C-alpha cells in the first residue's frame, strides 16, 4: 500500500482523470492495485441510489446509457445557449434554471434527477481523491483557454468534493513543468495539448527554473471527442440512420465503436468499425483506412494549428525560434497529429512522458511548491482572455489584456450620473471581441455605499485583480471620502459561494468526518498563524503605521483572541477576516521591507539560485 499524500495534483479531464503527488522530490501518479492510473471521467447512476464512477461506470455505459454520463467537463461553466451546437453529443437532457434574476444554473437530467456539472465533476474528483487516500488539499488543472466562469466551476467542484483547492493551474503549463523538471530545459518551448475535449497551445520561456508563459491560445471545443464524432457521422450517413432522433443506446454503441476504431488507427493502417446491436437487428461492419481517417480529422488539426499560429504571434515568436515542442493529451498519440505538429514547428516533438499522465505530474509539482516544498521552480502564467467592462453603446473597454501575467491588476475610475447617487452597477465581460454582446458576460457588480454627492463628484476607483488562478476579484474605493465601497459580484452562471457551502455540508462523506469540527480546526490554525505573523510584523515595522492603523490592528487582534475563546466558527471567521483587512497596510510595509532586504543582501545571480 502506498503512503497517503497530503496534497495532490489532479488532472480533471474530459475523458480521463487522475492524481499525482510528490514523493521524495519526484512526482508519481496514483495507481490502483492493478497499476492503472486513469479513472474514466464517467458516472453511472443506479435505481437504488448508488453511484458508480470510473471504469465500473464506463462498463455499464452500453447496458444503461440513460443513466451514464460522459464528458462532463464540456458542460463546466457553460450556458445552455453555448451548448446547443454539441448537444447531440450529450445523450441527456439539459435544462437551465434562472435561480434568481440574472443568474442561470445548468442542470443535467439523469433518471429524473437533476445534477449541476459542478456536482457531477465533484463525484469524479471524489473518486480520484479516494484512490489517493483522501488528501484534503489539491491543485486542479484546467485547459489554459478556460474562462473565469469555467475556472470558478472547477474550483467549486473541488470544494464540493471536500478539497481545499490550493490553485487552479493551466494544463499546458503543468505539462511544461513536468518536462522541465526532467531535462533542465532553457529556452523557448511550445506545448501542444490536444485532449479529449479541449485544445491549448502555450508558448513558454524557461530560464533558471522560472517558467514564464508568453502566450496561450486554444479552443475549448476541440478534442478527441470530435474525431469520434467524425467517424460516427460517416457511419450514420452510410447506414441511413436518423441522427436527429435522441437515441442514447444507439449513440453509445456508435461512440464506443468509433473510439475503438480511432485508437486502432494510431497503430495500424486500417481498422474495422464494428457495430453489433442484436436487440435491434444491427450487424454492421466497415473498414476505415488511416488515410481516410486523416482526411476526416484534417479540419480540426488545421484549426489547432491556427491556434498555434495565434499563440506564436502573441508571443512575438516565429516557429524557428521555438527550441522544443512538447506533446500533451491522449489525442497526440495519433500519428497524423504528430506529423502535422512536427511539420508546423519544423522539429520533432517530445513524447518521452506519457501524454495522459504529464499534466497530473506537473500539477503535483505545483502542489508541492504551494505546500512549501520545493522553491527552485516558479510558474508565471497568464490570463487567456481579456477582461473588460461594458461602456456606453455596448462596447467593451478592456482593462486587463489577454496574455497578461497573473496576478494582474488594473484600475478604472467611475463617477455618478445623478446627484446623491449612492450605487453604480457595472457589467463585466471576458473575450476579445469589440462588442459586449459578442463576449462572455461574467457577471454584474454593484458598487454601493458611495457617499451622497453631486453628480460626477464621487471618484470611485475600481480595481480588477486577476489572481494566480486566473480568476477575477473586484475591489473599489471612493477617493474623496477614502471609503471602501462595497462590491458584490453576481455571477451570470453557476453557483454562489453559499450554494457551494451547502453542497459541501450535504455531502454524505462529510457528515462522517464531522465537517464543522474540521472547519474549526482549520480556522483556528489560520487564526493563530495570522496572530503570530501580526505580532512579528508589528515588532519589525509597527512604527511605520499611523495611529488609526495601529489602533485598528490592536482591536482586531483582541477580537480574534476572544473569538478563539468563544469556540464559535462564524464569529472566528468574521474576526479573522477583520484582522486580515486591518493588517493589510502592515503586511504591505513589511513585505516591501523584506523584499528590499533580500534583494540588497544578495547579488541577482545568488537570488536566482537561492531558495527564498
Amino acid at each position, binding site marked *: 500500500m502506498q503512503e497517503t499524500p497530503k496534497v495532490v495534483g489532479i488532472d480533471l479531464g474530459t475523458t480521463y482523470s487522475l492524481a499525482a503527488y510528490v514523493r521524495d522530490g519526484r512526482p508519481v501518479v496514483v495507481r490502483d492495485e492493478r497499476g492503472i492510473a486513469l479513472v474514466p471521467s464517467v458516472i453511472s447512476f443506479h435505481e437504488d441510489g448508488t453511484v458508480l464512477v470510473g471504469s465500473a461506470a464506463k462498463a455499464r455505459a452500453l447496458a444503461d446509457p440513460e443513466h451514464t454520463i460522459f464528458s462532463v467537463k464540456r458542460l463546466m461553466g457553460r450556458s445552455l445557449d453555448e451548448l446547443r451546437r454539441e448537444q447531440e453529443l450529450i445523450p441527456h437532457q439539459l435544462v437551465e434554471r434562472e435561480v434568481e434574476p440574472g443568474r442561470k444554473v445548468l442542470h443535467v437530467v439523469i433518471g429524473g434527477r437533476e445534477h449541476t456539472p459542478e456536482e457531477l465533476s465533484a463525484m469524479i474528483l471524489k473518486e480520484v481523491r479516494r484512490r489517493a487516500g483522501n488528501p484534503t488539499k489539491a491543485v486542479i488543472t484546467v485547459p489554459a483557454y478556460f474562462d473565469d466562469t469555467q475556472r470558478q466551476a472547477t474550483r467549486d467542484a473541488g470544494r464540493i468534493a471536500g478539497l481545499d483547492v490550493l490553485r487552479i493551474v493551466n494544463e499546458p503549463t503543468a505539462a511544461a513543468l513536468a518536462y522541465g523538471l526532467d531535462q533542465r530545459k532553457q529556452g523557448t518551448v511550445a506545448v501542444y495539448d490536444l485532449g479529449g475535449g479541449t485544445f491549448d497551445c502555450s508558448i513558454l520561456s524557461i530560464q533558471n527554473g522560472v517558467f514564464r508563459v508568453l502566450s496561450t491560445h486554444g479552443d475549448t471545443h476541440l478534442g478527441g471527442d470530435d474525431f469520434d464524432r467524425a467517424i460516427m457521422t460517416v457511419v450514420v450517413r452510410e447506414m441511413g440512420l436518423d441522427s436527429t432522433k435522441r437515441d442514447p443506446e444507439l449513440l453509445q454503441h456508435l461512440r464506443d465503436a468509433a473510439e475503438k476504431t480511432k485508437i486502432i488507427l494510431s497503430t495500424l493502417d486500417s481498422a474495422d468499425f464494428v457495430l453489433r446491436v442484436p436487440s435491434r437487428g444491427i450487424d454492421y461492419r466497415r473498414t476505415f483506412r488511416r488515410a481516410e481517417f486523416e482526411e476526416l480529422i484534417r479540419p480540426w488539426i488545421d484549426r489547432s494549428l491556427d491556434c498555434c499560429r495565434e499563440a506564436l504571434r502573441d508571443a512575438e515568436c516565429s516557429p524557428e525560434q521555438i527550441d522544443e515542442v512538447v506533446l500533451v493529451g491522449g489525442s497526440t498519440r495519433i500519428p497524423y497529429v504528430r506529423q502535422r505538429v512536427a511539420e508546423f514547428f519544423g522539429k520533432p516533438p517530445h513524447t518521452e512522458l506519457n501524454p495522459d499522465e504529464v499534466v497530473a505530474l506537473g500539477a503535483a509539482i505545483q502542489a508541492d511548491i504551494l*505546500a512549501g516544498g520545493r522553491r527552485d521552480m*516558479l510558474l508565471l502564467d497568464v490570463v487567456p482572455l481579456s477582461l473588460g467592462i461594458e461602456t456606453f453603446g455596448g462596447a467593451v473597454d478592456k482593462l486587463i489584456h489577454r496574455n497578461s501575467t497573473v*496576478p494582474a491588476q488594473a484600475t478604472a475610475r467611475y463617477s455618478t450620473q445623478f446627484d446623491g447617487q449612492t450605487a453604480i452597477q457595472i457589467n463585466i465581460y471576458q473575450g476579445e471581441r469589440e462588442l459586449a454582446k459578442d463576449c462572455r458576460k461574467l457577471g454584474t457588480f454593484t458598487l454601493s455605499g458611495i457617499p451622497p454627492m453631486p453628480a460626477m463628484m464621487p*471618484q470611485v476607483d475600481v480595481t480588477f485583480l486577476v489572481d494566480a488562478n486566473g480568476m477575477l476579484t473586484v475591489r473599489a474605493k471612493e477617493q474623496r471620502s477614502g471609503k471602501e465601497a462595497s462590491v458584490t459580484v453576481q455571477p451570470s452562471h453557476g453557483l454562489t459561494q453559499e450554494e457551494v457551502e451547502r453542497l459541501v455540508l450535504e455531502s454524505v462523506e462529510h457528515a462522517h468526518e464531522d465537517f464543522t469540527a474540521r472547519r474549526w480546526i482549520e480556522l483556528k490554525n489560520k487564526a493563530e498563524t495570522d496572530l503570530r*505573523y501580526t505580532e512579528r510584523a508589528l515588532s519589525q515595522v509597527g512604527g511605520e503605521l499611523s495611529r488609526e492603523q495601529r489602533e485598528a490592528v490592536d482591536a482586531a487582534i483582541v477580537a480574534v483572541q476572544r473569538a478563539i475563546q468563544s469556540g464559535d466558527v462564524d464569529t472566528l471567521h468574521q474576526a*479573522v477576516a477583520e484582522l486580515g483587512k486591518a493588517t493589510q497596510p502592515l503586511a504591505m510595509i513589511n513585505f516591501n521591507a523584506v523584499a528590499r532586504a533580500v534583494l540588497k543582501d544578495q547579488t541577482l545571480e545568488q*537570488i536566482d539560485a*537561492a531558495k527564498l
Partner: protein
Amino acid sequence: MWLRQFVLDVIGRMSQPDYFERLGLPRRFSLDVAEIDRQYLARSRALHPDFHQLGASSEQQASMELTAQLNEAYATLRDPFRRAEYLLQLHGGPPPNASPEMPPEFLEEVLELRMALAEAAEDAERAEIERQLRERRDGMLREIADDFDRLERDGDRSAILLSLRRRLNALKYIQNLLRRS
C-alpha cells in the same frame, strides 16, 4: 478633463513607487532587455504568491498585490513603445491627443504600406513588408532614444517633449500595421 486626470496621476504617483523603482532600474529609456528580465525574475522569486501560500492572509494578499504591480511594471517597461509612453508621462510630456496632426508624407507612406500588406498574396512578399516595417520601427525607436538622451542633457525641454510626442504617435501607426499584418 485632461488636467484633472493629470493632477490625479501625479498625486497617485507620489504615494506609489514608479515602475522603474519597482524593478530597481534607472529611470531612463535605454535599458538592457536582459537586465529588465533579470530584475523581474529575481523580484518575482521574492514576492510571488506561490511562495507565501502558507503565510497569514494579509501576507498572501500583499504578496498578490505587489506581484500584480510588479507584473504591470514589467509589461510596461519591457515593451519599448510602452516604456517610452510611460517615461514621457513621468517627464510631464504632452498626452497622445496633444499632437494629432501627422505630416502628410508620413500618412502617405503608412497608407502605401497598408495597401501593400493587403495586396501581398504570398507569404514571402508579406514577410518582406513585415521586415521593412520592423526596420522602420527600430529606426523610430532609435530616434526616440536620442530624444530621451537629449532630455537628460539640457536643451529645449518642451520642444523635445513635443518631438517625442510626435514620434510616439507616428510609431503607433507602424505598431498597428505590424500587429495587423
